[in-house]
């Protein structure tokens, strides 16, 4: 059962689940797919998160109760929805050195060598649960507990775009230069946010991510080739 709850007078929230799990994620994706395929007049945007889907609408075009009924009707028999297979997106990363100043610390904390950290980080497949926090920032699931590391005590004032980091059980890539407290282990030459393209972000919710180790030279080559 999906509960529908108003979020103010211009949005409503569909509570699909209450935990972060692949199963909840698949149901969230199914809800979004259904609402994308059967658009309701007056709905402006449908935004998925870990366990909820938020529907933004114009109350001049459709009132809350009517929209709630229309959404309920649209979600009938949702279990039948077939999701397309996930896209696999490979993200090249130059680990360590100036790009990954915290790699040695992450290794030491987990009693590993830096190359073992890289091996573990590149070995896994990560699910993009949702995009949020910043344009194109992926919330990734699937980090091995063997390299999980708490955030830095003092956040850095500036983290360059493309930085790959670890924060607790999460790993992620910074799309924009921002301040932040993640442990930085490397950097990708790819742009995660590219406003001149459609879609404007490299990753979408539901994608699978693989990290691949590259050298500093390869980093420069890809960086120059990336528009």
């Amino acid at each position: 059962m999906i509960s529908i709850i108003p979020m103010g007078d211009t949005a409503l929230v569909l509570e699909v689940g209450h935990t972060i799990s692949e199963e909840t994620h698949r149901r969230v994706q199914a809800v979004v797919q259904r609402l994308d395929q059967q658009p309701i007049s007056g709905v402006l945007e449908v935004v998925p998160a870990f366990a909820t889907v938020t529907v933004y609408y114009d109350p001049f075009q459709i009132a809350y109760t009517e929209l709630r009924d229309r959404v309920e009707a649209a979600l009938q028999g949702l279990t039948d929805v077939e999701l397309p297979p996930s896209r696999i997106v490979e993200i090249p990363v130059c680990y360590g050195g100036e790009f990954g100043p915290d790699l040695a610390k992450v290794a030491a904390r987990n009693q590993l060598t830096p190359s073992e950290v890289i091996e573990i980080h590149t070995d896994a497949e990560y699910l993009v649960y949702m995009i949020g926090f910043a344009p194109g920032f992926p919330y990734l699931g699937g980090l091995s507990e063997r390299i999980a590391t708490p955030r830095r005590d003092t956040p850095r004032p500036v983290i360059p775009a493309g930085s790959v980091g670890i924060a607790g059980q999460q790993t992620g890539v910074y799309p924009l230069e921002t301040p932040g407290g993640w442990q930085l282990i490397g950097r990708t030459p790819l742009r995660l946010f590219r406003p001149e393209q459609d879609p404007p972000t490299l990753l979408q919710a539901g994608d699978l991510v693989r990290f691949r180790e590259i050298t500093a030279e390869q980093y420069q080559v890809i960086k120059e080739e990336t528009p």
Partner: protein
Amino acid sequence: MTFTVIRPGLLTTLQDLGRHGYQRQGIVVSGAMDSCALRIANLLVGNREREAVLEITLAGPVLQVQDDTLIAICGGDLSPSCLGQRLPMWRPVLVRGGTRLEFGKARSGCRAYLAVAGGFAVEPILGSKSTYLRGNLGGYQGRALQKGDVLAFGTKSIFATRLQETLRQTASMHPDSPFSTTGWRVSEEVLPAYCHNPTVRVIKGRQFEAFTEESRHHFFSALYQVTSQSDRMGYRLQDVQGAVLNVSQRTELISEAVTFGTIQIPPEGQPIILMADRQTTGGYPKIAEVIAVDLPVLAQLKPGELVRFCPVDVVEAQALYRMREMGIERFKQGISLEG
């Protein structure tokens, strides 16, 4: 047809109604803090209501006006003037070329919206001309205006051309005046209920029940001050009595979408109201959501002002919303007769 920036003011940016449709990619919506003032300013000069205008914050700019220009200034009263003469607000104004538009003291409100007939000629990014400062995205080179910037205008509508001709005739009768204006202005019914130290109406938030009974009561009786750590992204409030809001049980929330007007309570217990440049998602408990018709009132609060919250339900909020939109529809029809 340009403005040249002589002095940029505290924070002057191009904004329209925002970059919608990309929140699932984490793209911040931005847009005018006071969307009502923006829409009316555009309609007054014959633009589409979503066109980009200048959002002017507290201490406004000085702009050199190249040619005769049809403008409208709405929102907060930041003492707009031309050659020392006060410019009227909430009506179309033809400003003489070769003069300077200036802003002075913030007499009421915090943000003024300056529309020009034809809009500002900048390239939309992801469907919007709004400036997102933290992402250096959109607007005029992704940033606030600076000294020396030259802003070009787009093509005027037929309505604007006709209105400008009428105002030029009025101007020729008053050759000493740096501007001319119409005898009519926006009717009161369309204006947001701007006021100093307002009571803002809210709908209970998704985690309202997660707060202690005392905190739930306190939220609706407390007086909050808008702190100086308030900007286009959000307003940080401080309880004037120093009380904090507590949840009954501290649990880690799963991040989900937030919106313009979401009031979230971080662990220190003082509210943050999310505004135009908010992130798309958040993980703090949401005690309430400001109703859409009161967002313009909130947008005009200055740091130091006081605010209270009072609860309404969705049905009432949406009735108010429809009333406002019908008022704007009537205004649109009325204005097409004036032109």
